[in-house]
């Protein structure tokens, strides 16, 4: 792939032409916040946190999906983008019952970290306080919908890496929920291989290992990276 040149936040950089803006930025130590994105699985552009401004376009572009182009001028942190990101994170906090202080992922949570990154000091929107269930029918893992942000990392990692497609999404709008099999309790989902990749991929405390208490659920993001690298480079074959 030919190398192209572009500027991100005024910095002139060169990148392979098949890279996304996000990849190019990361390689050049420019930090674009992300949430639904996870290295090793497909990008869906759902959280809208990584939106950037591209000169010449009046639409904001999801940097996780937009390919770099010759001469492209990208702005990743204008005042407008910062404000949008903060609003999106506040909307997420208002949407479900995220209570950091009693969460298994307290201190190891990407949503909590993102709130810090975007400078959220309080939530300006009305909290929704939906009634959400907790499913601990699985022998090792649990899902707490109070903490789910519908990033669908679990759906994608289960489908694309494990190949089981146990997870999917049901309902629409604010009624959307991640489900196992055809909305069966996780413990009875026969397609689940109990590999635990969904738990490691989950950015919050929504998916957790049972027995972990407050602040104990640390996610191992490197597991996924390790698996994908091993698979791509065929490290396990002869």
């Amino acid at each position: 792939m030919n190398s192209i040149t572009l500027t991100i936040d005024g910095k002139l950089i060169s990148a392979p032409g098949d890279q996304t803006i996000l990849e190019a930025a990361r390689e050049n130590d420019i930090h674009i916040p992300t949430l639904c994105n996870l290295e090793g699985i497909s990008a869906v552009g759902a959280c809208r946190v990584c939106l950037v401004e591209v000169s010449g376009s009046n639409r904001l572009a999801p940097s996780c999906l937009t390919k770099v182009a010759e001469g492209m001028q990208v702005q990743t942190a204008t005042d407008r983008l910062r404000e949008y990101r903060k609003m999106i994170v506040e909307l997420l906090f208002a949407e479900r019952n995220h209570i950091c202080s009693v969460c298994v992922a307290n201190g190891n949570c990407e949503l909590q970290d993102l709130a810090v990154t975007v400078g959220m000091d309080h939530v300006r929107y009305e909290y929704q306080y939906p009634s959400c269930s907790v499913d601990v029918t699985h022998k090792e893992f649990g899902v707490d919908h109070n903490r789910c942000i519908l990033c669908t990392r679990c759906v994608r990692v289960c489908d694309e890496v494990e190949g089981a497609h146990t997870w999917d999404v049901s309902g629409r709008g604010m009624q959307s929920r991640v489900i196992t099999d055809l909305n069966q309790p996780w413990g009875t989902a026969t397609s689940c291989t109990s590999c635990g990749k969904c738990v490691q991929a989950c950015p919050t405390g929504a998916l957790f290992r049972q027995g972990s208490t407050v602040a104990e659920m640390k996610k191992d993001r490197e597991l996924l990276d390790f698996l994908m690298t091993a698979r791509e480079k065929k490290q396990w074959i002869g």
Partner: protein
Amino acid sequence: MDRVKMATVWLGGCSGCHMSFLDMDEWLVDLAQRIDLVYSPLVDVKEYPEDVDVCLVEGAVANDENLHLVRRIRARTRLVISFGDCAVTGNVTAMRNPLGVALEVLKTSYLDKSNLHPAIPSEPEILPVLLDQVRPVHAVIPVDYYLQGCPPPADRIRAVLEPLVNGVWPELPLAERRFG
């Protein structure tokens, strides 16, 4: 130099933020030189006074007494600080909200889950009446500053109060803006 007239209150919370306040240890002695503590659970003043400079509000607004007090605080205070996660977000205090309105919550706690003398407590004029929804302080009154943490670590409280009593607006670093 003028002393800052300071108050602290706890609404629907666990008083953990006040414990953390006391954890500021010897700096409290320095602080005491700069403030008059005009109202607080830590001192014996019954009525929230007029003309307070700064008030640390711990806890969420959970009952009619909280609501009454927080409105009075706003009317009589120059600078209101939401002190800790319950005040800023509702936090644990607000965990009852998904259960429904006040009566539903009382039924769940005192009737459905009770195995000894199930009865909903009711002592008019003594027990405050629960609001249907627990709300963070800024949902009820305008708030001037937000201090995160459950509880906010003592150093973080000091990092806010120290510049404030010296007339400087506190700028917490982002990392000190963490919930939980």
